[in-house]
């Protein structure tokens, strides 16, 4: 079948929803999601959304901008950070007006709490900047925007998986999708495609990400010739539940929680004397790994403790109830009495599809691709630089989701309909058929497990030339093995077996780009830490990495960082 809509938004998390809402009055918008929209991964965001409202104590957008830039280890493009910080209060009030049930202060304002890397007066001490709805901030925002989108007539296609981006002479003509319920392949003919497909934490073994986070949109953009930016910067959240990787929000430390090593020491005091446990995530994750490597894990093992026992049951119930319940369910412990075993878990991708300030996707010559937009975690603005601050992601989604929506609405006036090429779905159909027809080979699960193992062992918090080389060799071996991937399920309906085999191509391709980027960057900055190049090197490396697909090995090139207000200086907390 061919569906025709002015705008197709791929991915129904917060970025996609916010963009769709903005564009809904200007054209016919279709929202495609491989899960039911309310299952999207924005819903797992716990801690809150940053905005200098000053509801609890004095705050300013300039401090917020500075924190974002310093948090990003000066790789952040500063004009982007300025837009974010200035627009944040408006964006949060808008969410409140739509009905998001934020927690409140005694005077009836939106309540705010401290969060990692957010400071007053350019780093003097923590500031309460995170607006929150208990520890389910993302979920209530997403539900609110989803019902608002349904109310405004955005057409929703649930359980439709994008298989291909249809480009005609460098312009977008639509997408090819797979309908999970029927196994049919359809085309969406459109003038604009917005990719808002989220992250791809599933390239790692232990992650806070959902199973759906396989980076399909990012990979399809890459395969279409779009370069990917800053892919070496992978955020490991310091406090994943040991073993599972399920997230324990930074809000736990924002509310006063303390990390302790095997001897009970509050070790963050040594690594970040000013803001201690509220240092940015890259620093805290490295600190935890250092403690573990030096034998100071709990009982010498590979985890540390997050101590919330002094917060009291009332505060845990009112502000951290979801994480309290996760700990009870998965560990069988009571956070009011027992410390929580944690270790870093893959959480967020700073890199992705390069865009301008309004979500227009940029090609290898930094020129907008007509009709193609991206927003959210799959995009790279670059706002988060080398390390994202907590609560800046939800904010990114609504601020830049809205801007992308606005720009799409404007572009409708300029963009003609491209003719849909005949048989646009054929390449995707034959790719699927090859997998379905294959009788001999390996299951996707086996290859995926090997990929996750090598990425976790060789390309996590600490990296070096040798480990990255090893990962690259292994990924390329797995890419070979993937050519013989087979499935058990040849049925047409709800065939997750086939879908996961197709998703694995994205994971493999993106893992290669992550490792190639990490190998190229011979310095340590933000979340990218090279043991063989332990210092930040602004002379050589204050620039963004871009990786483009070629017939041979991926090509690496660079572009400069936009610095407007804050010159790079030493990053201490």
């Amino acid at each position, binding site marked *: 079948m061919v569906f025709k809509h002015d705008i197709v938004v791929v991915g129904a998390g917060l970025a996609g929803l916010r963009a769709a809402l903005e564009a809904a009055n200007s054209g016919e918008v279709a929202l495609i999601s491989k899960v039911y929209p309310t*299952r999207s991964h924005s819903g797992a965001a716990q801690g809150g959304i940053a905005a200098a409202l000053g509801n609890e104590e004095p705050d300013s957008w300039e401090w917020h901008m500075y924190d974002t830039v310093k948090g990003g280890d000066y790789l952040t493009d500063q004009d982007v950070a300025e837009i974010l910080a200035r627009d944040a209060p408006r964006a949060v009030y808008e969410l409140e007006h739509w009905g998001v049930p934020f927690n*409140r202060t*005694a005077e009836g304002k939106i309540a705010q709490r401290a969060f990692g890397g957010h400071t007053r007066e350019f780093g003097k001490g923590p500031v309460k900047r995170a607006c929150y709805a208990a520890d389910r901030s993302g979920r209530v925002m997403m539900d609110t925007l989803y*019902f608002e989108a349904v*109310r405004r007539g955005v057409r929703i296609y649930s359980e439709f998986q994008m298989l291909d981006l249809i480009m005609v002479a460098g312009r977008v003509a639509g997408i090819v999708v797979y309908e999970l319920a029927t196994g049919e392949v359809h085309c969406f003919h459109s003038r604009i495609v917005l990719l808002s497909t989220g992250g791809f934490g599933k390239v790692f073994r232990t992650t806070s990400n959902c199973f759906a986070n396989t980076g399909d949109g990012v990979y399809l953009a890459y395969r279409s010739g779009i370069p990917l930016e800053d892919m070496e910067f992978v955020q490991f959240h310091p406090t994943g539940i040991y073993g599972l990787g399920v997230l324990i929000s930074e809000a736990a430390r924002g509310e006063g929680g303390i990390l302790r090593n095997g001897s009970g020491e509050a070790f963050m005091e040594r690594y970040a004397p000013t803001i201690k446990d509220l240092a940015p995530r890259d620093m805290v994750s490295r600190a935890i790994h250092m403690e573990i490597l030096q034998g100071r894990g709990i009982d010498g093992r590979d985890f540390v403790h997050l101590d919330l026992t002094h917060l009291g049951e009332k505060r845990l119930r009112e502000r951290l109830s979801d994480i309290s*319940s996760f700990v009870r*369910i*998965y560990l069988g412990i009571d956070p009011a009495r027992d410390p929580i075993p944690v270790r870093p878990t893959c959480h967020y991708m700073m890199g992705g599809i390069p865009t301008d300030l309004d979500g227009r996707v940029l090609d290898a010559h930094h020129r907008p691709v007509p009709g193609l937009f991206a927003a959210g975690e799959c995009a790279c603005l670059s706002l988060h630089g080398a390390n994202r601050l907590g609560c800046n992601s939800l904010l990114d989604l609504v601020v830049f989701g809205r801007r992308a929506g606005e720009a799409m609405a404007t572009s409708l006036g300029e963009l003609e309909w491209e003719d849909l090429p005949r048989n646009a779905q054929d390449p995707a159909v034959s790719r699927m058929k090859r997998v379905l027809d294959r009788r001999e080979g390996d299951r996707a699960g086996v290859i995926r497990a090997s990929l996750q193992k090598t990425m976790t062992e060789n390309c996590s918090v600490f990296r070096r030339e040798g480990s990255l080389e090893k990962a690259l060799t292994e990924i390329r071996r797995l890419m070979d093995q993937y050519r013989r991937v087979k499935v058990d399920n040849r*049925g047409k*309906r709800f065939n997750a077996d086939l879908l996961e085999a197709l998703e694995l191509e994205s994971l493999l391709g993106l893992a290669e780009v992550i490792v190639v980027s990490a190998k190229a960057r011979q310095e340590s900055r933000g979340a990218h830490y090279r043991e063989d190049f332990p210092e930040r090197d602004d002379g050589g490396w204050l620039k963004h990495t871009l990786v483009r697909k070629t017939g041979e090995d991926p090509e690496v090139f660079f572009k400069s960082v936009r610095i407007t207000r804050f010159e790079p200086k030493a990053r201490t907390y």
Partner: protein
Amino acid sequence: MEMRFRIFRYDPKVDREPVYRNYLVSAEPEERILDCLNRIRWEQDGTLSYRMSCGHGVCGSDGMRINGRCALACQKLVKDYLGSEVVVEPLPFFKVLKDLVVDVDGFLSGVMYFRPYLISSAAPPPRERSQSPEERKKVEEVIRCILCACCTGSCPVMAENEQYVGPAALVWAYRTIFDSRDDLKLERLEAVNSQKGVWACVNHLECTRACPKEIPVTKCINTLKREIEKHRSGKP
């Protein structure tokens, strides 16, 4: 340890009737039932269908019936079922699309029926609307709903009363009715004041037992009933 699973299998487009298939899975006590299902699908039988995404009880995809109780497969651990066979079935009262995948469109329309979004005619202030912590507290529990449908799948009334929208839709109605920022309280109360709404509920309490987010669902429905009575008697 080895766990025995008996799983409901049915493709209505192909099969004449459902069957139960047996699987043996090795699992650690702390693993999730979802981990076992994944292992079955990844290692033994790729034809098994079920929904899942976040894996930790936030997205609400993997509601199903496990040993007779509606629950999220990602919130139930192997150790809760030691020594017994684990029988996994789709949510009751929902049309089966394939195996454990059910049609949730009707369920979502039920939620949508009560207009689960804030309606306020006043132009919003330049900053946030004011709401006291006490007013906000009224919705503290219901905003935990993740639309997993475990409550609706557990409710015995669903078997008898085809009109009933089910408990989840009422939780969403509650959310707007007790939101101090919403204008439409009376109209919304009138909408749930019917056999399709609150009066279908006869306090079986199964929804409350099933809710993976520990929302006191039955209590909320009874609060709605009392609120309707208060307005009816003219003493709001």
